């Protein structure tokens, strides 16, 4: 202790001195004025470039959706198209179904996500880190592939779990049918619960334990503390997560299309797809898209408000340590629950696909005579269509990621390094695509670019635009946060030493941003590589991607091949995700937070090092 005190005082003495010493060397004032003047022209050019890029990627297509919805048959402007909403029974049914799926999934996600968050953050349950990690992994797993796995497990005729249960209990009928609304809710909940789990566990972790202690010391029982303090304090995170689940499940395409198809169960995105197929009824699709965009935008705005709400921010002192509830024998129940979640969301569906990829025939039972190690994989890779799809998906994922990174870099540079009132607009605009369901963006792109004068229908270019546009929010979030941590001073120091703008970016800014760029890039790659939502809308038969191929294989019920291709996609996903998680773990923000918890660690640095 003694040593650290003297070290502390030395460090704090050295601090200001070191700073004032770097002052004259770091920022010579004469260089400043001309730089400002020169950069305004450059700045303006950059602003124009950014605006054009954003308009091309998302602005113009979305505007086209709005435009199309008010174009009358004779080319005039009319609102009468909206009357279709009341007269088309299939539209109404789809909206009802979407709402029903969304509400059910919110409930399911809460039932899974809340206990899981509490167990992993606030109890002494074993393997907490493992379960936490798997929740994050679930987030990166493709839900439509999981839905394929569940078809194989709980399909009413051949589902492996169903037949097993039938033979064990001697049932006449299969006990479960995944091709129902309940089945869809079940699969979606297992995949969207991280949207609740992640913010809620972060909130539980971030709560000042003194808030709960204050209540306990005033005589509140443990249950009363949970009810009157803990729960209200995490409520904004919970509601925010629930809104995300609601929005995501109402507009998700993949699992709903796969599980709803056999019974003709349609939700908004699937009905949109059928409207776009021959003969296309684009104006109807546009008419239904517009209110959805408005509602989603409103919900996401509410979500933002909740997350950033001042009323719920807590004035921090020294953050203390969280109380850990000792579960006693209940630990085993908790572990069983968490294991079930991991089993149902990851192990069973993907394991089933893996097993299926080694089966010769679906109809026959599992066994060695029904085993083929490479047969299905050869089948899959032997087809030129799939090889082309692989190439396309790789190229599109990489291209879309890079394009999004470029736009995001440009945007965050504008936000952080220039002072214009419109900068707040940039932040909003970069997050806006979050509110565009893949289906709607896809429709917008078709209206905007498929026909003349662009004539991009079915090309790789239109897919690239789609991928880059949808990747913008996530990419920007990372780059923006990374840039925020760098601070203009490090760039100015380099400029002050005579380095040009370009050299400063190459030698200082980009290397410092590398962790953010890599993380954003890898995550985007994962998401884009298996992109289905927009791809099915833009696919015309000419340029397949792995997801569209997989979707078509599933609709033809070629499940051994579905298994093999899924396994390949998952492997690629897993490898990239693991790399991304490694990189994310070393985020600068992480270490800063850790050091706040134990200040002595930082202060114990030897003074020589600090100086």
């Amino acid at each position, binding site marked *: *202790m*003694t040593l650290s*005190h*003297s070290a*502390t*005082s030395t460090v*704090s003495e050295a601090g200001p001195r070191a700073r004032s010493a770097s002052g004259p060397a770091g920022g010579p004032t004469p260089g400043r004025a001309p730089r400002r003047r020169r950069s305004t022209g450059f700045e303006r050019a950059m602003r124009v470039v950014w605006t054009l890029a954003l308009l091309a990627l998302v602005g113009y297509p979305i505007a086209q959706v709005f435009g199309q919805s008010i174009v009358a048959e004779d080319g005039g402007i009319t609102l009468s198209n909206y009357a279709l909403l009341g007269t088309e029974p299939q539209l109404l049914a789809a909206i009802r179904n979407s709402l029903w799926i969304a509400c059910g999934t919110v409930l399911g996600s809460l039932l899974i996500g809340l206990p899981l968050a509490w167990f992993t953050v606030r109890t002494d349950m074993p393997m907490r880190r493992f379960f936490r990690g798997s929740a994050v992994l679930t987030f990166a797993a493709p839900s439509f592939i999981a839905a394929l796995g569940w078809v194989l497990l709980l399909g009413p005729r051949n589902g492996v779990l169903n037949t097993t249960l039938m033979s064990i209990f001697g049932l006449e009928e299969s006990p479960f049918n995944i091709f129902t609304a309940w089945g869809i809710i079940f699969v979606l909940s297992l995949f969207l619960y991280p949207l609740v789990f992640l913010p809620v566990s972060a909130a539980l972790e971030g709560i*000042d334990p*003194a*808030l709960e*202690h*204050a*209540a*306990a*010391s*005033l*005589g*509140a*029982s*443990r249950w*009363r503390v949970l009810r*009157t*303090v803990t729960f*209200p*304090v995490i*409520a904004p995170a919970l509601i925010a997560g629930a809104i995300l689940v609601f929005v995501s499940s109402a507009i998700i395409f993949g699992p709903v299309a796969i599980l709803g198809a056999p019974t003709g169960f349609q939700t908004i995105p699937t009905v949109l797809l059928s409207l776009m197929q021959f003969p296309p009824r684009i104006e109807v699709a546009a008419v239904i898209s517009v209110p959805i965009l408005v509602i989603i935008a409103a919900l996401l705005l509410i979500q933002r408000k909740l997350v950033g709400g*001042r*009323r*719920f*921010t*807590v*004035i*921090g*002192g*020294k953050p203390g340590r969280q*109380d850990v509830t000792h579960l006693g024998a209940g630990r085993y129940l908790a572990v069983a629950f968490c294991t079930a979640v991991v089993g149902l969301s990851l192990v069973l569906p993907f394991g089933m696909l893996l097993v299926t990829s080694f089966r010769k025939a679906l109809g026959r039972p599992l066994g060695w005579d029904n085993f083929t190690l490479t047969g299905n994989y050869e089948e899959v890779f032997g087809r030129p269509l799939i090889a082309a799809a692989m190439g396309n998906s790789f190229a599109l994922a990489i291209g879309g990621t890079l394009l999004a990174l470029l736009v995001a870099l440009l945007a965050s540079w504008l936000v952080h390094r220039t002072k214009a009132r419109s900068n707040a607009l940039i932040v909003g605009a970069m997050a806006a695509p979050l509110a565009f369901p893949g289906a709607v963006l896809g429709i917008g792109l078709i209206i905007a670019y498929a026909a003349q004068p662009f004539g991009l229908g079915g090309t790789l270019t239109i897919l690239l635009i789609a991928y880059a546009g949808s990747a913008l929010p996530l990419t920007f979030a990372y780059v923006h946060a990374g840039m925020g941590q760098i601070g203009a001073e490090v760039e100015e120091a380099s400029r002050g030493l005579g380095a040009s703008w370009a050299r400063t970016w190459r030698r200082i800014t980009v290397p410092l941003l590398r962790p953010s760029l890599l993380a954003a890039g890898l995550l985007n790659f994962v998401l884009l590589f298996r992109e289905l939502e927009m791809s099915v809308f833009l696919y015309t038969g000419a340029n397949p991607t792995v997801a569209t191929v997989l979707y078509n294989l599933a609709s033809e019920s070629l499940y051994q091949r579905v298994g093999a291709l899924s396994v390949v996609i998952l492997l690629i996903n897993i490898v990239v995700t693991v790399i991304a998680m490694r990189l994310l773990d070393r985020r600068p923000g992480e270490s800063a937070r850790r050091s706040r918890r134990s*200040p*002595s660690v930082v*202060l114990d640095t030897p003074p020589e090092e600090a100086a």
Partner: protein
Amino acid sequence: MTHLVLSRLTKSFGAAPVVDGVDLSIQEGEAVVLLGPSGCGKTTCLRMIAGFERPDSGEIRLRDQVLVGGRTFVPPERRRMSVVFQSYALWPHLSVRENVGYGPTTAKVGRTEVRRRTDEALAMVQLDGLADRYAHQLSGGQQQRVALARALVNDPALLLLDEPLSNLDTRLREEMRSEIKRIHRSLGVTMVYVTHDQAEALSLADRLVVMHSGRIVQVGAPEDVYRHPRTSFVARALGATNLLPATACGPSSPEGVPLRLPGGITVTAPRPADVAVQAGDVVAVSIRPVDLRLSSGSPGAAGAARVSEALFFGDHVQYAVDLPGLAEPLKTTGPSLGRFDVGQDVVVQVDGTAVAIVSDGPGSPVLGQDDHHPGSSATAGAPLPPAPAGRSAA
């Protein structure tokens, strides 16, 4: 009447003991302040009293009830102790009134009674007008007052405060300090107050407990601890001081110990409570800068010294003076009228009652005879408490 008793309280996190055999009894209505450098285990002590932490061993008793000991562990919600936290810990989703009313509501005393008590507590901290605001709509000082009202509303058996003022700026801190003192006096509530700010500790305490690495090193009335620190650690913990070597130049008597300080100054210091000093012993003494007087004089006299630094502060001047035989300059202060200049010859005088003989920890009560460098030996073994201002800013 003895109110709260801690006996042989011990707590470790991992291998290192954080609280190491603490014994303390607190009288009813008393204000006890725990003072010590960061990490010495003050908060851990408080948390064990409140019930947020379970001691490894030892006993805590409140009146005649055992709170902790053997198999007994009374959970926090049944201890009737209110805690005021450094972070205030106001619930962000509740208004001021709801925050303060939480205790009575929990106790299910009926709606009118809740309202009466809440209003009373808010009036006590002079926040009557702000009852419907939320925490984020209050200033730091107001939040602190709400936290205080919330803790007082239940008429707690014990009020525990953990560095409640460290998030406030200096002016507010002084204001809240006297506010807490006033409330303590008017309510007569028993209070345990944790801080590492010596001004807070000295002004609020009926009894001051100085802690160091999980142990209590000295307990007593604030004046007594300030005047008669037993170790150099305690002397430094309570403010700026000069630690210098002195030689006993005669046998100790009831009047005190005759000492010869560097520079030939002779004084009779009060006898230390726990060590015997023989003639010829070299001891360490602590003298506060304000207790050293400077007057003009010429070299050669007893206590002759030279001013090496003079910092003007408006109402007083801080000096560093070089005394022959001392490696480090003496710190002292003087009035700003008739100040001395750097390089001027002065004479240092000190009153015997201001000299405290300190020992540096058990085992080496007195510095060895024939010691090495007289100048540095007095300070060598003493751990430095942190500068209080620097800590709270960090």
